[in-house]
């Protein structure tokens, strides 16, 4: 989990329950573009014929989201914040093989 590693609180609510926000540092964001390698494409292509869940893609997106979130957190740390509130995620596919995962939120200082 991100907040355990970096020591900062990340939530997707506007306020942090039980905490008081004293200062805002603006919007911070982090993104990654990840592509799947061809071996995965072939096996998942076969899986797609049968239908159901594509586990490898789920894993891939999870890894990418973790990376996007940790980039956002390091941006927040660079601004001197100790929490990120109102985090939102967005996904966009650039080409069939690659997807962009984007996370953004507001860096704040809490007491």
């Amino acid at each position: 989990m991100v907040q355990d590693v970096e020591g900062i609180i990340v939530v997707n609510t506007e306020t942090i329950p039980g905490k008081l926000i004293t200062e805002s540092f603006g919007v911070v964001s982090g993104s990654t573009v990840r592509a799947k390698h061809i071996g995965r494409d072939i096996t998942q292509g076969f899986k797609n014929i049968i239908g159901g869940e594509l586990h490898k893609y789920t894993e891939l997106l999870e890894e990418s989201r973790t990376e996007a979130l940790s980039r956002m957190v390091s941006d927040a740390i660079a601004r001197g914040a100790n929490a990120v509130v109102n985090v939102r995620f967005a996904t966009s596919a650039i080409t069939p093989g690659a997807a962009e995962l984007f996370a953004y939120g507001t860096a704040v200082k809490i007491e």
Partner: protein
Amino acid sequence: MPTHNFQIRNPVTILLTIFIIVLSLDPVSAQSSNASVNIGELIGILLLIFGVLGVIWGLIWMFAYPIFLLYALIFSGKNLDNMILKTVERERAIISKFGKDILSNIDGGFRKDVISSGIVWAGAVYGPSHWHQLLGKLYNWFGGSIDIFQKVISAGRAESMQRLREIAIEEGWDEVINVRIDTSPMAPAAGRKGIKAVEVFAYGTGIKYN
């Protein structure tokens, strides 16, 4: 990327391979080449290897695809029902254990006795089988609701919400507030070819009571 329009691609590959073989057997180019390796010849050999690999891959795909499609025809509907049933079972187990659903999509600003909070998220990529895609196309001609696709997406949504519950419990949160659910296509630009799947992604703020 594997595609299901193997009928179109394979003759092209085969023709290309034959063309390359004919070129490499050309006596004029054989005479002009010296003892050292000719770059044109090297490229020819490489192309030949790729062509042969392509043909082998095409043949495997040609035989494997109908088998997979037959499997999808017989089992994919049943598998989908089983997946939904399993998810519902897990969901009920957790709700009966905690006495309520731990997910809610309201903002928890009013809660006073919270000691810690943090983000939790879970995702699942689900795709309809090619048999279902064919049926979906058929239904598309007549219009109306396409229940098969709806079923696949709601199975994915139930699964990702269930994972969110499980992850939240695993990480020690008592409740998850402000839950949001996003759905995005895996590859919209793929068009007719490629993998058709949607990613359902659920996230929220885990909170821990005093």
